[in-house]
Structures are given as C-alpha cells and as structure tokens.
C-alpha cells in the first residue's frame, strides 16, 4: 500500500504542476481535481469509509463547480510564465525538501522517544513510514506552486486554483503529522473544500459574465472608482457603458464590438454579450 500512496503523492504534485502551468483553463481545472481528490488519501493509516467518502465528495464537488463555471469556451489564460518545466522544477525541489525534512523530523522524534512512547501525532513518521514523508513533500510542493498565483495572481481562475492548492496542502500537512483521522473532522474539511470551490466558481463565473475574461481589475481600472464618486460631485463623469448598461447619452446602444477583436475589457467598457 505504501508505494501506491507515495506514487499518489507524486501524482498529486504533478496535478498541481498542471494546474498552475496549463494555459487552457479546463486542463488547469482537471489538474486541481486530481490534486484535491488525491491529497485526501495520502495518509497512513487510512481513515474510515465515511471520512474517505466525505473527502471524495467534497473534492469532486469543488472541482466540478469550478469546471462548470468555465462553460462557454473561456479564453486561454496567461498561465505561469515559467511554463511547465519551471513549475516542475519548483515542485521537485520543494518535494525533496519536504521529504528530507520529514525524515529528519522523524529521526529526531524517534531518538528522543526511544525509551518512551512515540509522539502520538507523529507515530507514522517515527515509525519510518514513507507516506508521511511523501505527504509533507507534496504539501511543500503544493505550497510553493501556489505561492505565485496567490500572492501575485491577477486572474480570477489562477487565484482560485492557487487557493485550492493551498487548501490541499493544508490537508496534506495534516495527513503527515496526524496519527489518526476523525470522520467528523474530515467531513468539516470536505465542506470547507466544497465551499471554497463554490467560492472560486462563482468568482470565475461573475468575472466572465461581467468582463468576458478572467482578469481581476485593479481599483484604478474598475468602474468602482467611478461609481463611488460622491453623489454631489460638481463635475460628474459622462455616462459610460459600464454605468448606463451600454447606452450612450442619447440612449443609443453602444456599437457592437468586432467579434474578431480580442476581448480586453480592461476599463470595464467591454460589455458585449459573450457568444
């Protein structure tokens, strides 16, 4: 069982690489589904059926909701500029660091606990099992891969996938250091995963609905600054499509955009209906 779980940890890491580096949104979501689903099972000993089922349902639901939110041929995203080779390199290094750190930690705990009971929370780690090492390695790899989209992400999908990667990393960290798993706690984590997936999905959906792309507008570019000017402004701004629903001053419909032109929507002016 142990080699299979270690392989699963590697597969989870590979899924994370796909999630952060793929330019095709659906492929990236496929990667996150693999990560969320697999991360719950890199644990030794295996939790009960209820816990396994709860995590499976929560993970699949989260991924499915994000998948559904991308209906209607979303545009390719920028992906990670480093590409998949760079992402793979980061993941491998982080995985190795986590693996070695877990080994060192297990050795230290085992030395100190040689004449006494093992630290309960790290029984598997001190027992020499490879699964906690793989779990910690995958957790670090996922965290490293998620750092860029979470801290610098300007794209609703990339940010959301990064956050879901972080959630999976927290679960893996817990798997590495927890001796036993509690069905109710697993259920709580499953609910958190599903709700987070729903949050990402609704964010992506609204972004596509409003702007036709996934870019997150800064405060200087969104129409928030326009909409929230004081109502007693002495020099009100002229109506814009974002404020009057696409009508000009005379109530005319704004000219239809060129279907072949890229949907920039940077200033919130691109309100053309998506095909």
């Amino acid at each position, binding site marked *: 069982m142990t080699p299979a779980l270690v392989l699963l940890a590697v597969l989870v890491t590979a899924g994370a690489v796909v999630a952060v580096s793929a330019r095709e949104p659906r492929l990236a979501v496929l990667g996150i589904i693999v990560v969320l689903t697999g991360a719950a099972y890199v644990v030794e000993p295996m939790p009960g059926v209820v816990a396994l089922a709860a995590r499976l349902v929560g993970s699949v639901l989260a991924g499915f909701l994000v998948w559904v939110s991308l209906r209607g041929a979303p545009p390719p995203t920028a992906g990670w500029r480093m590409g998949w080779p760079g992402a793979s390199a980061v993941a491998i290094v982080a995985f190795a660091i986590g693996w070695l750190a877990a080994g060192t930690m297990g050795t230290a705990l085992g030395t100190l606990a040689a004449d006494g009971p093992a630290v309960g929370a790290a029984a598997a780690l001190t027992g020499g099992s490879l699964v906690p090492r793989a779990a910690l390695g995958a957790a670090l790899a996922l965290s490293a891969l998620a750092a860029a989209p979470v801290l610098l992400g300007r794209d609703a999908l990339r940010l959301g996938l990064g956050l879901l990667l972080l959630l999976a990393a*927290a679960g893996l*960290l817990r798997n590495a*250091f927890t001796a*036993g798993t509690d069905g109710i706690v697993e259920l709580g984590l499953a609910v958190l995963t599903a709700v987070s997936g729903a949050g990402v999905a609704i*964010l992506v959906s609204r972004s596509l609905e409003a702007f036709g792309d996934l870019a997150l507008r800064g405060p200087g570019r969104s129409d*928030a600054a326009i909409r929230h000017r004081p109502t007693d402004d002495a020099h009100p701004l002229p109506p814009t499509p974002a404020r009057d629903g696409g009508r000009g001053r005379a109530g005319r419909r704004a000219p239809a955009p060129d279907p072949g032109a890229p949907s920039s929507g940077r200033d919130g002016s691109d309100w053309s209906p998506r095909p």
Partner: protein
Amino acid sequence: MMLVLLLTLGTLGAAASAWGLARGGRAARGGALAGGVALLAIVVLALALDAPRVGSGTIPEGVGLLGGRLIPNDYLRLVVALWAMDAALLVCIAWLGAGLAGLRGLLPALLVSIVGGTVALAATELTLGAAAAGATGLVALVVLLATREPASITPAARELRATIVSTVLLIGAIAVAPIGAGLAIRAAGANADGAPADPAVNGATTMGADATAIVGLLVLAIALAVAIRSGLIPFHLRVPRLADVAPPVSLPLLLAWVPLPLAVVGLAAVDRLLAPLALPLEGEQWLIIAAALFTLVAAAAAAFLQDDLRHTTGYLVIADFALVLLAFAALDPEAWGPGRTWLLVLVASKTALGAWAAVAEGRFGTRSIPDMRGWIRRSPLLAAALVVTTAATFGLPGWAAFEARVGLAQLTAGAPLDAILLVAGFLTLPTYLRLLGLGTGVATSRVDRAAPERIVRIRRFETLSVEVEGVAAESVGAEGVAAEGAPAGPDAVPGARPAGRDTAVRRAARTSGSMASHGATHVGRRFARALRRDATELTAAAVLTLAVLAALTSWGVLDISGAASEPAPIVSGPSSD
C-alpha cells in the same frame, strides 16, 4: 437538541431567504419573512441553550452533537444570541433603507455566518473549528457578489484570498503544533533526567532549541492568520476597497463578525497547544507586540485623518482588532479570558458604529465627513447612539471592556510598556470626538436637506363616495389606495384613486373565497408601509438599540467575562497528543 435546532433553523432560514430574495415579488417577501423569523428564533434558542460550563464535570447526555465534536458552552450562547440580535437589527435597518432589495445577500449571509460561527465556537476539535471559521469567512462572497456589480468582483477575490490563506495558516499551525510541543516536552524531560555530560542530553538540548523555534513560528503563523483575516496593518489595503463596494449596512458583518470565529479558534490553539509549554519566546512576543502597537497607532491616525466615513469605520475596526493580537503576544493562558471578552466587546461596539455610519450616510446622502457638519442638529437619536457606542468601545473602570483592555496590556508586557499599550488602545478616541464635535457645528446644506427625526403622522382624510360605472367606491385612506393601485411611478400622486374598473375588480375579489388571505396580506402591507413611512426615526432607534446592546456587552452583562474565561471545549484526541 437545541443546538441541532439552532443549526437547522439557521440553515433553512438562509436557504429560504436566499431563494426568495433572488426571485423577487411574493417569493422575496416570503423569503425575507422566513429569514427574519429564523433570526428571532435563533436569539431565543441561543438564550435557552443548555450550555454546561466546560470543566465543571461530565457533559450531560444529549447536549453534545456529532459524538461530542460540538458542545455548546456559555460563551457560544452569548455570542450567538448577540450575533442574532445584532443581525436582526441590521436587517431592519437594511429593509427600512432599501426595501427587500437591501436584504439580498445580507440576510442569507447573516444566517449562514451565524451557523458557521456556532460550529466554530462549539467545536471540540481545533481543526474542525478552523474549518468552520474558514467557511464562515466565505460569506463575504455572498454579500459582495449578490449585487452583480462588476466593481465588487476584485474585492470579492481579495476576501476569498484573505479567508483561505488565513484558514490554511491556522489549520497548518494546528497540525504541526503537536510536533513542536512533543519535541519541547521530551527535550525538557531528557534534560531533567540525564547527566550534563550525557550525549543524549546534548541532543535533547539541541532539540529543545529546535522545538522552541518551531513553536515560535507556529505562534507567529497563528497571529498572522488572525492579522490577515481582520485586516491589520499591513494587510489592511483590502478593507477600504471592500468598504467602497459593499453595502454599508453589511460592513459590520464583513469587518467585525466574520473574523471573530477565526480569532477565537486561533486563541484556543495558542491557549491549549502552545502557551502551556512556557517556552522562552521573547522574540516572537516582541514582534507581535510591535505589530499590534504599530497597527494601533497607524489605524487610529488613519481613522482620524480620513474624510470618508466608510474608511474611517474600517480603520476604527482595524485598530480595535489590534488589541486582539495582544492576547497572542501574552502567551499566557490567563490572556484567554480577556482576549475573548475583548472580541465580544469589539464586535458589538463596531456593529453599532457600522450601523451608525450606514444610517448617517443614507440620511445625509454623503460619505464625506466634512459634509456632515451639524448632523447632530438633525439627528439627536443618532447622536445618542454614537455617544453610547463610544462609551461601549472604551468602557469605564469596572466594566468588562475596560478590564479586558487593562488585562491584555498587563499580561502582555510589564511596566512601562503595559501603560503604553493601554494608552495606545485609546488613540481612536479623538476620531469619535471628531465625529461628535463635527455634528455640533453649523449644518451644511446637505444636512439641512436631510429628513429630521420626528415621528410624522399623516392624518387620514375622508373622501366622498362616488359612483364609477355604477359601482360605489369605498372611502379609503390615502395610503391604502396608493399601495393597492397600479405600481407607483414617478408621476404617482399620494392619495390618487385607481380607476373605477380596478375598484370594481377589487370589490369582486373581496367577496371571493380568498378574502382572508388577501386581507392578511393587505394588513401586512399597510403595516410595512407604516413602518417605512417613519423609517428615519426607526433606523435611528435601531442604531441606538445596537449601541445599547454594545454598552451592555461592554459593561459585562450576563457574566460575559466569566463565560469568556471558561476553558475552551477542546478534548484530547489522537492529533492533540
């Protein structure tokens, strides 16, 4: 049993209100009614909750839930009751201000957040509590994205990021904490048992240093999680932008209530897993104290210098949250009680402040503080509310709020730093005084134009019966006609009678079998209309009620300090070692 009922009611109320308010019309009225009834029922259930004092003995059968993973406690009872009462008043304010459209997003979010907060505060497993607290934080999306405003997408993304990052930090710290604690305990044991020259003792000493470093990092991670979630400086940038796009009446929920469960779970993690180790963590303590002090000073200055009412409110909330960091910096189980007391005072007083700001903005039609000069002349009830809120924020000697401030400062640092921290906690006072002082000035034209707080009774007038197409019209009051006729447009005249054909149809309807339900709806609409006619006074009264609730909390009614000081309902498990 009561806990199950509370959670079920909250969930069903949230679902019904979300479904109904999204559809509009009769469904919206039904949904809003269901949500409102659920809120009131939660208040009653929370106060009637059988909450055994933790540590007082065995938990009676039937009190816990999910095999003892959720156990109600006194603190939970008070928090949920106050949360639901505040929520009900906020819903009233939102409805009076913007009708049912003002409840879309807000009412379901309030109910869901109460359910999530209840689970987080009742959890006996820290990871479960952290997961529930994280899920609670996601209600911000419900509020922000309900408006379908493109401008709210980016702030919603920031809220999502802050919520999940803080939750992940907390869950990660809880997972690693037993390792650090185990290392520290075993290193201490080896040091105590072995001879100084023993190589095993040297190894243990090294391991002890490593354990100290790990535990220090964990304390910082938990404090960081709370700082990110509550928007402390330097993580404050999302707060003004959130205040710009969120409905103002929802700000108390988003800024004050939503971070509360995460802060409580973070405090529980430190109190139960890390503080009892009593490791020398001066460096980490100083770092947290510095962050808290900087936030106290900077947020107070920003609040005073800001001319935007919403931003000022946001910075006042941030400044008060900085005091919560002191409970982490103390690294003393004694700080658990004052920390949780202060959290409750914070949310109660900031809810009153946020509601005051929302009502004032709606009343005077501006967010600019200078434009609100002279506001007290037009709004004495709001003035009273702000005075009471100020008193609730700072408290008086002997009050729970004041004692919590003093306790946190003294537990965090010795003299003279404790005095500095205590004084820094009062740095927001000038902002409150500025708002009050500005209100006594000469009223601006904007304030002059605002509706005064004065109950206005429109005298019902009699109309003569007339024959229209052979049907005798009834004499009805002006307000009844205005509501029963066609949808009021810009040209609608109060008191205008509908066409004779409509009157005939209505007469026929009155004789039909649905007369009873129609009458009830009619009475309900008239009641609602009567309430909204005096919206100015009623919103001010609601804000004053919130302020009084905050003052009672600050005073320490219902033994809030005692409830906050009772041990966390955490049981030992395989992961807590």
